[in-house]
C-alpha cells in the first residue's frame, strides 16, 4: 500500500471533496458541485461513491461494499479490494460490524446505527433531469423551490397506469425544502432514509455532484393524498431464509420457467440462515 497515498486520492483532491461534503451536510438534499477526478475504473462503476469513501475513510475504519445488496458481485468485490490495497483498511461483509458502507442501489435491511456512514453511488443526481435537460433551469427550479413539474410527472404516472409507476429512484423531499434523487434504490428502501441514525453521503462521479443527509433528517417520498406512497416489494417470502419483510430478487433457476425469490441483501439472508431460519426452497445446502 505504500505505493499509493492513503486512500488513493491526493491530499488536495480530498480537501476539495471534504469541503463539498461539509457544505452538503449543512444544506441537506442540495447538490454541491465538485471537481470529480478520473478514477481507475470507468464512470458508471461507482467513481462518485469511491471518491466520497476515499475522502471519509480513516485507517481505523471497517469497510463494507454492497452492489444491489450483495457483497460478492463484481462491483462490490473490486471496490472492496481497491480500498484494501490503497487504504489498508479492514473490510467486512457484516452490516453491523462496518463503520463505512458503500452501496450501489440498496440500503441494508438491518437498521444502521449511530456513527455508521452510508455512501451511495449515484448515476444521475438531478431528480428533475429527465423532465428538464438544462442545468441552468433545474438549478433555478431548486433555488425557487419550483417542484410542480415533478408532481405533474407523478400525476401522469397515475393517469396512464392507475398508480405511481416509479419503482426505483423515487423522488423524495428533504426537510421540506429540496427534492432529491435517492439514487436508484428500490422505493421499498425510501422509508429507511428518513430519521436514520447513520450519516448518508451521495457521490455522483460523472455528473460531479455530492449531496448528503445528516442523521435524523426528515425525508418524505413525494405522493398525493389519494395516492399515498407505498413501499412495495415482490409478494413472496425469501426462498432461502423465509424472510417476509426483506426486499427480494427474482432468480431464474432453469429454462422451464423455474424461479425463486431471494433476499437481495446477502448479509441479512446469511445471518438469518445461520440463526436457523429456512425458506421453502432451502435444501439445507448453501445455495450460493
Amino acid at each position, binding site marked *: 500500500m505504500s505505493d499509493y*497515498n*492513503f*486512500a488513493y486520492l491526493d*491530499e*488536495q483532491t*480530498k*480537501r*476539495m471533496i*471534504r*469541503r*463539498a*461534503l*461539509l*457544505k*452538503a*451536510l*449543512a*444544506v*441537506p438534499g*442540495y447538490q*454541491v*458541485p465538485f471537481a470529480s477526478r478520473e478514477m481507475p475504473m470507468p464512470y458508471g462503476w461507482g467513481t462518485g461513491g469511491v471518491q466520497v469513501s476515499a*475522502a*471519509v*475513510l*480513516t*485507517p*481505523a475504519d471497517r469497510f463494507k461494499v454492497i452492489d444491489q445488496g450483495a457483497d460478492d458481485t463484481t462491483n462490490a468485490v473490486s471496490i472492496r479490494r481497491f480500498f484494501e490495497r490503497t487504504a489498508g483498511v479492514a473490510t467486512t461483509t457484516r452490516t453491523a460490524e462496518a463503520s463505512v458502507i458503500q452501496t450501489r442501489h440498496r440500503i441494508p435491511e438491518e437498521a444502521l446505527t449511530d*456513527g455508521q456512514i452510508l455512501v451511495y453511488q449515484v448515476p444521475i443526481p438531478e431528480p428533475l433531469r429527465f423532465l428538464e435537460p438544462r442545468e441552468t433551469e433545474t*438549478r*433555478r427550479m*431548486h*433555488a*425557487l423551490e419550483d417542484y410542480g413539474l415533478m408532481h405533474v410527472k407523478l400525476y401522469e404516472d397515475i393517469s396512464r397506469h392507475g398508480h405511481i409507476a416509479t419503482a426505483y429512484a423515487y423522488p423524495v423531499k428533504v*426537510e421540506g*425544502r*429540496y427534492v432529491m434523487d435517492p439514487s436508484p434504490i428500490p422505493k421499498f428502501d425510501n422509508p429507511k432514509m428518513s430519521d436514520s441514525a447513520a*450519516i448518508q453521503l451521495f457521490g455522483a462521479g460523472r455528473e460531479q455532484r455530492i449531496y*448528503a*443527509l*445528516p*442523521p*435524523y*433528517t*426528515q425525508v418524505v417520498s413525494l405522493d398525493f393524498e389519494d395516492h399515498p406512497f407505498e413501499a412495495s416489494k415482490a409478494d413472496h417470502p425469501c426462498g432461502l431464509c423465509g424472510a417476509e419483510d426483506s426486499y427480494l430478487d427474482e432468480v431464474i433457476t432453469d429454462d422451464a420457467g423455474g424461479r425463486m425469490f431471494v433476499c437481495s441483501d446477502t448479509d441479512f439472508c446469511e445471518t438469518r440462515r445461520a440463526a436457523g431460519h429456512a425458506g421453502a426452497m432451502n435444501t439445507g445446502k448453501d445455495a450460493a
Partner: protein
Amino acid sequence: MQAQPLEGGFATPATQSAQAFRAVMQAMAMPGTIHALAGARPPAPLSPAAGAVLLTLCDADTGLYLAGDCDTPEVRAWIAFHTGAPLTGPECCAFALGDWAALQPLHRFPPGTPEYPDRSATLIVERARLDTEGAILTGPGIRDSAALSLPGVDAIAINHARFPLGLDFIFTCGDRVAALPRSTEVA
C-alpha cells in the same frame, strides 16, 4: 528566518487529516456533539483544534480571512507554509478564523447564492469554553434536541432564517471541536 513556521503541522498528513476530517464531519452532521481534534501545533493564539481544521480544509483554492487577534505575522507565516491559503478580506473568503467578537458583523461574509448556496463562508470560531449546555438546538442531525454553549444566539438565529443561504460555523476550543450548520434552529 525562524524555524517556528515550519513546525506544528501534521506528522503524517494523509492519515491525520483523514482523522481530523472525520471529527469535523461528525461535528457538522450532528450539531451539539463535541469531538476531539488534536495533532496540530499552530502558533499562539490559535488552538490546536483550529490549526487542525486549517490543515484539513484550507489550501491554495480557499481564501482565508484572519480576524482580530488571530492576524499576527507568526500565524500568517504558519498558514502560508502549511496550507498556502491566500489571505483575503471577509467579503470573498471561503473560511474565516477568529473569536466571535472579531468576526462580527456576520453580514460581511458571503452567504452563498440561491442557485449555489454552497458558495458560502465557513467561520472557524475560537471559543474559551465549549460544552453541551446552553442554547437548545433542533434540526437535521439532531434526534430530539441538543444543547451547545453558543455565542450570539440572535445572530445565529438570523443566519438560520436565511436557509438555504447562510454561514456554517466550526467552534474550536483547545483540542476539541463542535459545529453548527445553517440548518440548525437555535432557541
